[in-house]
């Protein structure tokens, strides 16, 4: 197999890609990174540009000012007018959905990329891959007859069949339970053990980063905001932009008011308002300016003043806007500062939310994360 002899792979990329979206205006992705053999996690919130980045590397999109090299060989060099089409990049690319060809059997799907090989070699390659990902018993089934986890294993086998030189995985295990995920990743790791290909693995879930990570690249709003080992990039988000990448939608400037060592908490007043938040004790002194990061999904929304709760932060505010984002709703609430709150459409209906109405935000102390300025 050619991939065996290719030795240690390395992917270098530097490009800019911009697009004018129908609703959100201009989006620009500008990145510069290097991927070594093994799994590199590409981590960031939804809409950060992760999938776009993979599409650019795969050649499905054509970025500007691009230099993309694989093992020193140019895939895209806009200065030299080189653009290798996706058909000839020899990459494996697994989308969020398995995207199996529905009219072909599992076996035909996996052998789709092996059209150069002869019949015998092809059959044995397919058998090997189906076995490596534990789906050999499904060879003659159609995609409609298998489960989501199986479909994703087959999609992985199909992507790896043509002996790719690098692997791109776009949240490939979305929607699978943790155990299944771990099993598939183990299979991928052992497959890659002798091959040593660079693998770029996209996710927006922290637990996956912790489980997989050898190296993490954090992206946010089209920029790389941090790189390195998982714990240095993600634990205790120190910089505002990294906190963003770690999935905190809310960033509040505040000044520490008092510190209660015994209770393990401190209080901070939001800049330009009277609103105070209680947060866990951190490295800060009274009078310090700090940033507080809160996930939009960690804030509860109430239509009436809540009582008898353990949560220490109950803020009164006004609902400024309500916007659909995928399956959830994004509420913008003005309560001293602007808070983003994610709720489900069902919750919005039962609360009978209307823009302009009075609402209360409920935030647990431990949902408030201190970020150094």
């Amino acid at each position, binding site marked *: 197999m050619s991939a065996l002899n290719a030795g240690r792979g390395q992917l270098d990329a530097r490009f800019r890609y911009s697009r004018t979206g129908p609703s959100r205006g201009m989006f620009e992705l500008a990145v510069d990174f290097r991927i070594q053999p093994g799994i590199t996690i590409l981590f960031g919130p939804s809409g950060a540009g992760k999938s776009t980045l993979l599409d650019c590397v*795969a050649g*499905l999109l054509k970025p500007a000012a691009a230099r993309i090299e694989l093992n020193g060989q140019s895939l895209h060099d806009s200065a030299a007018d080189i653009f290798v*089409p*996706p*058909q*000839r*990049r*020899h*990459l*494996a*690319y697994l*989308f969020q*959905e398995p*995207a199996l*060809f*529905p*009219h072909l059997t599992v076996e035909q799907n996996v052998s*789709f*990329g092996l*059209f150069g090989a002869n019949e015998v070699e092809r059959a044995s390659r397919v058998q090997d891959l189906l076995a490596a990902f534990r789906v050999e018993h499904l060879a003659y089934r159609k995609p409609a007859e298998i489960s989501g986890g199986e479909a994703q294993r087959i999609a992985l086998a*199909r*992507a790896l*069949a*043509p002996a790719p030189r690098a692997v791109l995985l776009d949240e490939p295990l979305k929607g699978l339970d943790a155990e299944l995920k771990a099993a598939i990743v183990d299979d991928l790791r052992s497959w890659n053990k002798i091959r040593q290909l660079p693998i770029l693995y996209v996710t927006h879930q922290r637990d996956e980063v912790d489980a997989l990570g050898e190296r993490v690249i954090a992206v946010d709003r089209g920029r790389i905001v941090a790189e390195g080992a998982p714990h240095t990039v993600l634990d205790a988000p120190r910089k505002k932009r990294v906190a963003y990448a770690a999935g905190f939608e809310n960033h509040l400037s505040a000044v520490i008011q008092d510190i209660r060592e015994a209770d393990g908490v401190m209080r901070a007043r939001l800049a330009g308002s009277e609103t105070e938040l209680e947060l866990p004790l951190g490295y800060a002194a009274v009078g310090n300016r700090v940033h507080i990061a809160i996930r939009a999904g960690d804030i509860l929304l109430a239509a009436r003043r809540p009582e008898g709760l353990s949560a220490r932060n109950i803020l009164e505010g006004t609902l400024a806007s309500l916007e659909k984002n995928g399956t959830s709703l994004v509420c913008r609430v003005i309560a001293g500062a602007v808070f983003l709150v994610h709720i489900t459409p069902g919750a919005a209906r039962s609360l009978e939310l209307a823009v302009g109405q009075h609402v209360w935000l409920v935030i647990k102390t431990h949902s408030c994360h201190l970020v150094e300025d």
Partner: protein
Amino acid sequence: MEALWLSVRLAVLVAAILLVVAVPLAYWLAQTAWRGKFLVESAISLPLVLPPTVLGFYLLVALGANGWLGKLWLAWFGHTLAFTFTGLVVASLFYSLPFAVQPLVLAFESVDPRLLAAAAVLGASRWRAFRQILLPLSVPGIVTAAVLSFAHTLGEFGVVLMVGGNIPGVTRTVSIDIYDHVQSLDYAAANRMAIALLLISFAVLSTIYAMNRRVWSPWPGR
């Protein structure tokens, strides 16, 4: 029954030629990002809204000895197209084009673009992806296109009358035959033909409805 046989021959021929023409045309329409695409769509759809006599009139002018197509044909084959079976075929191609193109565009556009992206990343050329992924997944649309062009050609009247006239065995199709019988008050003969046409049309339409496709689809949305 000569007229019915002629109509069936015409419809089969037109449907077959239309598939060959419409598949690449629909593929292009389904995947092009060209801004002037709506002009092509409108031109193809014209026969849906124009009275057949208008279309027939212009086709007659074009196909006649003084028309550009007629002249070309005359130069190559030594006779004109108007009032010939070939002329009928050419006219019917234009008349039934939207019925072939629209279901095909709809079918091509409803194939998940990620499947084609997956095929590309796996190294498949555009042609191979078209042949092995797009076409097989569009089979219901292809059947609908074929059946609709066949049925629509079978039932046409105005265009045939304008371009083909009424020459038995050459251009007298079943709908004209029925009209003729009614004109000469031969209701029994008209009824035989009408029932035959009705049954064939019903059989054809029930075939595609049984395949659970939207038949009279407008241009697919973008």
